[in-house]
């Protein structure tokens, strides 16, 4: 049962990394779009694509936090006691991002609008960086905020979110008939994927230097299948987009990024903090475990159909504004 709860926690983290990553990635491309006419069009598409779903992904984050403190209170304590600066930076980035995304819709003056764009874009880079850096600090087993591994994890996540953001924006450009932006984001998705592969390789070397045990498990142990999936799927998406084959690329993007998270988590299991804290040591007493499993089951039974309904209505166009 403790493993099952750890797995649910991992699912929440993965959902946030993939779904939230698409949002953060869009913000990164917003920042990089620049002041040109084409950049302005790209930003307009990003705005249009994000408007109805942005911030919904925060729910995954809250869920992960709540699962962590109820299910693994000791993990929550040691992680926050050691890594509070990273979480504080990520948190401030998260709020600024949300606030300024909203603000740029109501900003009247061009200067205010540019400021809103800038804050939104920069916080879209910093937030995933600091969240992932905390995972890197955990993986290193030392729980110090800044170390080669925390920085490496942070950089990987920025590349991964840029990759998934661009990949999904290709789809949005196609869906909303912005033909000239399809190629624009396709090239960016390919570039981001190549950066991801490069940064990922550097990260593996860093892990090898700082936590050789973890690297061994990633390349020969429980992490291997997931590491392989990422290593195969990322070039596959590059190939598909390069050739202009617009099928499966979004699903495969999510699978590639999700596998990356799984590769880390499975490689360090049964440790929650390598060398310090295992799942069995940190798990809440049995009563709380039962409640968490019930909550998880309800989540599956109720939330999945509800999200399905939302998705169905959205695809049917039932949720788009009627006038104007």
């Amino acid at each position, binding site marked *: 049962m403790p493993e099952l709860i750890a797995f649910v926690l991992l699912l929440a983290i993965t959902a946030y990394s993939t779904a939230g990553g698409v949002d953060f990635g869009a913000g990164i491309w917003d920042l990089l779009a620049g002041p040109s006419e084409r950049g302005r069009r790209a930003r*307009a598409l990003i705005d249009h694509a994000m408007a109805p779903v942005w911030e*919904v992904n925060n729910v995954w984050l809250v869920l992960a*936090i*709540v699962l962590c403190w109820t299910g693994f209170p000791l993990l929550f304590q040691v992680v926050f006691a050691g890594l509070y600066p990273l979480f504080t930076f990520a948190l401030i980035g998260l709020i600024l991002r949300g606030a300024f995304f909203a603000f740029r819709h109501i900003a009247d003056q061009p200067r205010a609008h540019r400021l809103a764009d800038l804050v939104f874009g920069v916080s879209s880079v910093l937030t995933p960086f600091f969240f992932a850096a905390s995972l890197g600090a955990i993986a290193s087993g030392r729980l110090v905020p800044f170390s080669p591994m925390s920085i490496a994890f942070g950089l990987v996540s920025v590349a991964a979110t840029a990759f998934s953001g661009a990949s999904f924006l290709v789809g949005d450009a196609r869906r909303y008939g912005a033909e000239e932006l399809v190629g624009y984001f396709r090239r960016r998705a390919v570039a981001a994927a190549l950066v991801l592969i490069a940064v990922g390789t550097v990260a593996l070397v860093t892990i090898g230097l700082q936590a050789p045990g973890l690297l061994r498990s990633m390349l020969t142990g429980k992490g291997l299948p997931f590491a392989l999936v990422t290593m195969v799927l990322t070039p596959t998406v590059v190939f598909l987009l390069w050739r202009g084959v617009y099928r499966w690329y979004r699903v495969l993007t999510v699978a590639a990024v999700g596998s990356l998270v799984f590769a880390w988590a499975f490689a360090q299991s049964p440790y929650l903090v390598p060398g310090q804290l295992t799942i069995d040591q940190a798990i809440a007493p049995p009563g709380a475990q039962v409640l968490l499993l019930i*909550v998880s089951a309800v*989540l599956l039974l*109720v939330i999945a159909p509800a999200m399905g*309904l939302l998705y169905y*209505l959205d695809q049917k166009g039932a949720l*788009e504004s009627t006038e104007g």
Partner: protein
Amino acid sequence: MTSAVWLASEPALLPSRIQMAFTLASHVLLVPLGVALPSLTLLMEGIGLSRKDPVAIKIARRWSVVMAVQFAVGAVTGTILSFEFGILWPRMMGRFGSAFGLGFAIEGLAFFLEAIFIGIYLYGWNRLPPRLHFLLGLVLPPTGLVGAFGVLAANAWMNTPAGITLEGGRLTNVDVLAALFTRALGYEFWHFVIAIYMTAGFVVASVYAVAWLRGRRDHYQRLAFAVPFTVAALLTPVQLAVGDLSARALTEDQPAKFAAIEITWQTRDHNPEVILGLIDDSGRVHLGISVPSLDSLLVGYSPNAIVRGLRSFPADARPSSVEANIAHLAFDLMVGLGSAGALVALWHLWVLARRRRPPDSVWFYRLAALAGVGSYVAVEAGWVTTEVGRQPWIVYGLMRVSDAVTTAPASFVWTMLATLIVVYALIAFFFISLLLRLAARWRREDLGEPSAPEVGVPYGPRPGKFTPDA
């Protein structure tokens, strides 16, 4: 005195307490409309559907926009709070997370559902069949209530912890039901839920009270004022009774908090009720109006009823005099505002019952306009009463706030606090300017420029077509 000692030994304690108080106080302001506005909106939509009244539907649709924006801001401030539990109080979470956190697990679930259905409700106007739209909206009030239940279960657990087995300082077992349904939950839940429904009603109505004062007197204004105000007015007397029960329950569940609220120093019978006034470190009460024996009468229905005083608790297990004064004045403020609200509510109900319409007096609408702000102040005051009255405990009788606080340097927490204050001020500014902008646009529309109420709202649905040049 005692607080001063802890403040010296735990440098991060003061900024952590201020930060938690600041972020919670901000979040509490968003809760009433977040939880209760969906119900008012559905009530209005239901009126519109059953009476085939397009004006009621229009009001409901506009309220739903405010509801969604407000929900999104509340989601942000709520996310911050969940991180603060770890950043500021890691030792409390490490020891008690699996009991204290249970309610939040349920709340997380409800929050998830609410987010999805607010999306469906907001985007579904005029796209879904009206009856189906209304039925899907009916999911919202229960999710809000379940969410409130989760948070209040956690807070009640801090006030009257139960359902846990501690061995050598480690939590070895949790009885889930006992930990969720603690003694304080019953009254805390009803007291708070009624408070937020009252607040939502008074706040929404106050907007249209101002409109009345500015001369708008049409069907739209009358409906949008009367429905929420009547809901709040009907709940007000219930709240007085529930509030009275809550205060009385404290004499058994948290006697030190009760002593602080009443600034009672000596345990005694014929205890007077002190209205306003301050207590000093030696237990003397200054200023204030003292009504002989009233406290004893209220607690035990007899002047001979004995009320326990602050002095009967060890100095390190009761609120300091400063904390007692804060809790006491906040309590008096809450009760005072509640009683004033009850008078305005009675006026409304009296006229409504006799003439089937709200009162026609300028003074009534002035008071009704103030009732919105007054409700917010009362909710804050009630929350201050329960939180400050629990000091020095974070978990009553089991863990002190000073034993839960982070070991981070005080300078870090102060800097974080300063940053949060700036960011919250920005969010408040954006939020309020957005609401004002919406109000102005809707007013223009009522004077003759039609468009969908959600267009241009950052949380609203996108237009059907993407136009890069828009």
